[in-house]
Structure formats: structure tokens, C-alpha cells
């Protein structure tokens, strides 16, 4: 059974803070939840479904359900596939609503990696008993070099250049200048990106997303409830999700799990890439955007570098406006997880509530796509297609 039309995003809120040393992570989650519930015109007691991921203190829903005192829960899902978890949550919430498991689903994300001094250049031990860890951690894989491996191979196979990757950062920065909450608001040029220090070649500092504190929340509800609220309605049209990995030593580093998730979302929605007016594309790194564009079918595999040139991702200029909030590259990447802000900006676009300088005129069909984990080893991938009704 399809989820197309079975549920709507009716509330969305992005926490305005980018540095929050005096806020607990639980408080950030609750402030985001409160913002989304108010945005929807609902009250906390309406929430009967709750979704969170690994950024939740303790790694699942126990502590936050307790802290927020959610007392009417009939459906709970703490699926965690890193930064794309929240796109998956939207799809799972629509499914749960379609199945009659809940009526009003709350999704939250929050974290303080900036205040806690986290970085993409530190080896992250993700826990005991990981089968891969003994064969990888001695080689010092960090977030940046695992994406750099994919970028280097993409350049080798397809001739993608650093200047092309830089175009993605430039587009994000042109959008971010209009977002008063963005962490980096200064427009940059291709030359400035190329002049930024190499972190792990071929990726430079400006190819990398920000490390920011903050959070966000989303409310998904069933059509009958949405109809009574009088708010702009964003229909969930289609979704896809998968996990992509090393395939036991037969990996293709130029292809992401979006090659599976994207086409499935388009099929469910009954639309094609040519129909999409705005795209939120997960931008942990510039290469992440480029590979998703290919895997979603906006261009052929290998043509992503040419696709992003000449401002093609810039609102008001190019064919496919992307990340009009400034994205993870310039605006916000709370808890080192950019999935929820991808959904939130797509909702703003579909409601016509993006900044006027970046609003896509008559935006009725948008896509949000995310990758969580590392393209270079293992990652989750998820795509959503959303429509203004």
C-alpha cells in the first residue's frame, strides 16, 4: 500500500540557536517540539506518535518521552540511520498513520556538537561489538576522509573538478545570506572555496558542512485532523529508504543508496525528476550533493559536476534551486545530522514561507533527500517527495 496522500506535514520548526552551551540536549528537543506543535496549531496532548533517532539522549525514545511527558503515545519509532533518520521518520509516520497506529506524530532532532567540541576529523568509535571496527579504526577513518574517498574516485572516473564542487558551496552561501539564523552568512566565490585549506584531499574546508548546535521538529498528521487546522497542507507523496555498504569488498564509491531510495520515492509519488521545483539535498559535503543529484536522476551518473555549474542550484537563476536556507554547508547541521532541516526548508518552500529572495515562485512539488553515515563505508539513504495541496 502506498503512503501517497495518507498523511501531511502540518508543523515544522527549526530551532534558531546555532550555539547553545547553556541548553541541555533534552531542552533543545522540547523547544523544537513546542515550536512545531504551535506551528501546527495543536497541543502536546494531541501527540500520539513519537519519532526520534540516535541524537536522543540514551539513543532511543525512553528518556525524551519521559522528559517531554508524552502520555498518549500509541506508536513509537526510534529508527536511527544517522543524519537521514528524520526523512525516514516522516515516511514511517505516514505509514503508521495510514495503518491507523496514530493520528499526530512528532519527530524531533537536537544536539550540541559545537558546544561539545565535536569535529569531522576525529575517529568516531560507534560502540562495542561492531564487526567492521577492528578492520577499519586502525586506519583512522574520519567523516571527512570517508567522503573524500568517494570524491576522489568520482573525479577519477568522471573528471569532476574541485571548481565544480565549489559551485555547490557558492550556491548554498548565496542562499544563506538571506537567512538571519544561518551560521555562515557571507557569500563566497569559487576561488575562495578553492583557496580554503585542504582538510582531506580533494575536500577543502568550504566543501564541509558546519558544526552547529540546535535542533528541529516536525508534526505529521492524518488528513481529517489536518483539514480542521486551517494551515498550509504539505502532502507526503512518496518515499524511499535503504542502507548501502561495502558489499563484502565489492564497493562502488561513486554510487550512493539514493540510487535505490530516490527512484522508489519517484515511483510512489508518480512524478519524475523533471517535475521537481525545489530540492533539499543533504550537504554534509559538497560531494554528497553532487552524487545525490546523479542518483536521483536529475542528471546522468558522472554528469553532476556539469549540472551544478553556472548557478544551476541557485534560486532564481538555475533549473533546480536547492537548500535555500543555506543548508548544512552554511546554515545549520544540528547534532551533525542534517535530515530534519532538509524537510523543514522543503516545507517552507511549499508553504511559500521561504525568504522572498530565495522563494521558488509557485512551488508545489519538492524533494528532500538525505544520507546518514559515511558514503565511504556504510550509510543510510532516504528520499521524500512532498506536495503543496
Amino acid at each position, binding site marked *: 500500500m502506498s503512503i501517497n496522500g495518507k498523511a501531511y506535514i502540518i508543523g515544522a520548526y527549526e530551532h534558531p540557536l546555532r550555539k547553545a552551551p547553556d541548553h541541555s540536549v533534552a531542552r533543545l528537543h522540547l523547544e523544537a517540539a513546542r515550536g512545531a506543535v504551535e506551528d501546527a496549531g495543536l497541543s502536546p496532548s494531541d501527540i500520539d506518535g513519537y519519532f526520534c533517532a540516535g541524537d536522543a539522549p540514551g539513543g532511543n525514545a525512553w528518556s525524551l518521552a519521559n522528559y517531554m511527558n508524552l502520555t498518549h503515545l500509541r506508536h513509537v519509532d526510534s529508527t536511527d540511520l544517522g543524519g537521514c533518520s528524520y526523512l525516514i521518520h516522516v515516511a514511517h509516520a505516514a505509514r503508521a498513520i495510514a495503518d491507523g497506529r496514530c493520528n499526530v506524530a512528532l519527530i524531533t532532532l537536537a544536539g550540541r556538537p559545537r558546544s561539545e567540541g565535536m569535529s569531522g*576529523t*576525529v*575517529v568516531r568509535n560507534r560502540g*562495542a*561489538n561492531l*564487526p*567492521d*571496527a*577492528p*578492520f*577499519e*579504526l*586502525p*586506519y*583512522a*577513518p*574520519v567523516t*571527512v*576522509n*570517508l567522503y*573524500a*574517498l*568517494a*570524491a*576522489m*574516485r568520482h573525479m*577519477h572516473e568522471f573528471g569532476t573538478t574541485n571548481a565544480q564542487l565549489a559551485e555547490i558551496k557558492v550556491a548554498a552561501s548565496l542562499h544563506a545570506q538571506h537567512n538571519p539564523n544561518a551560521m555562515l552568512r557571507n557569500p563566497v566565490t569559487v576561488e575562495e572555496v578553492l583557496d580554503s*585549506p*585542504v*582538510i*582531506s*584531499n*580533494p*575536500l577543502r574546508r568550504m566543501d564541509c558542512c558546519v558544526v552547529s548546535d540546535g535542533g528541529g521538529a516536525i508534526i505529521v498528521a492524518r488528513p481529517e485532523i489536518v483539514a480542521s487546522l486551517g494551515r498550509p497542507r504539505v502532502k507526503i507523496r512518496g518515499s524511499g529508504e535503504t542502507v548501502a555498504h*561495502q558489499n*563484502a*569488498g*565489492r*564497493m562502488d*564509491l561513486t554510487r550512493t543508496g539514493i540510487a535505490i531510495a530516490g527512484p522508489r520515492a519517484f515511483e510512489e509519488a508518480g512524478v519524475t525528476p523533471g517535475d521537481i521545483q525545489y530540492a533539499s539535498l543533504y550537504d554534509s559535503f559538497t560531494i554528497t550533493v553532487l552524487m545525490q543529484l546523479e542518483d536521483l536522476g536529475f542528471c546522468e551518473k558522472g554528469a553532476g559536476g556539469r549540472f551544478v555549474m553556472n548557478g544551476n542550484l541557485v534560486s532564481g537563476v538555475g533549473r533546480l534551486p536547492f537548500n535555500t536556507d543555506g543548508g548544512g554547508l552554511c546554515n545549520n547541521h544540528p547534532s551533525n545530522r542534517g535530515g530534519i532541516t532538509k524537510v523543514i526548508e522543503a516545507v517552507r518552500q511549499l508553504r511559500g514561507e521561504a525568504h522572498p529572495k530565495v522563494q521558488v515562485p509557485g512551488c508545489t512539488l519538492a524533494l528532500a533527500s538525505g544520507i546518514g553515515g559515511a558514503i565511504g*563505508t556504510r550509510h543510510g539513504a532516504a528520499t521524500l517527495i512532498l506536495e503543496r495541496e
Partner: protein
Amino acid sequence: MTTTTPRLHRVPADPALNPGDAAWFEAAGQGRLILRQCRSCGKPHHFPREICPFCWSTDVEWRETSGLGEIYSYSVTRKAGPLPYCIAYVVLDEGPMMLTNIVETDLDRVHIGQRVEVCFHHSANGTAIPMFRPVTHGGVR
């Protein structure tokens, strides 16, 4: 070409072994790179598992490798500690690809398609970690 990156090596982190992992590291301690191969479906895989990831058979065996391969992709990380280092995927001549480090060479000259051979560097607790260095051409590495 001038050498701009020093040939100093970071000491690899000690691997935290799970049950079943010791044989691969013990072989490394003897200067051997070994590979798991399934007797049921015939496919080799990496990282090594006690159950074939392709057909889920438990009939897996160790095989020796030539220790030779080719760089599939690499990145020289310069901002993650005091020493630059090169992470890479090497496709072994026997087929599977493995995450590793490229060492004992000018990191500015590492490239995709480069022929490499296994070598071994020790973690703090003395565990041998297989890494790769370019095969020599007339004594130049």
C-alpha cells in the same frame, strides 16, 4: 618532484577484536595477508567473517594472498592530528577491496591505479596492521 609531505607514520590505534578476528591479525604478525573465501560459493570477501556474506555458508576457509593490489581511491588527511596520513581502498589482486593506509612513500605522489604491496605496521600494543606501499621501480618508492 619535490617531497612536501614527511614520511612520518602515525601509530595505528589498537584494534578491539571480536571473537573470530584473531587469526587475521596473527597472520599479519607473521607477515602474511590472508583472505576469507567461501568453499560453498567460491567467493572471497573482506573484512573477514566466519560466515560467508554472499551465501551465508559457514564453510569458509583462509587463503593466502599475493599481498599485491591497486589503489581504488585514496585521500591524504592533513587536518586530523599532527601528521598527515593517507587512507585508501586497495583492490587486492584476489578481488576484494580493503580499507587501509598507504605508507612508506611521498603522499603527494599517491594515485588511483597505483600498484601497491602489503607491509605491516604495529599498533601501540604490538598488533600488526596490514598497510600498503607502492611497489618499487628500480629501488624508488
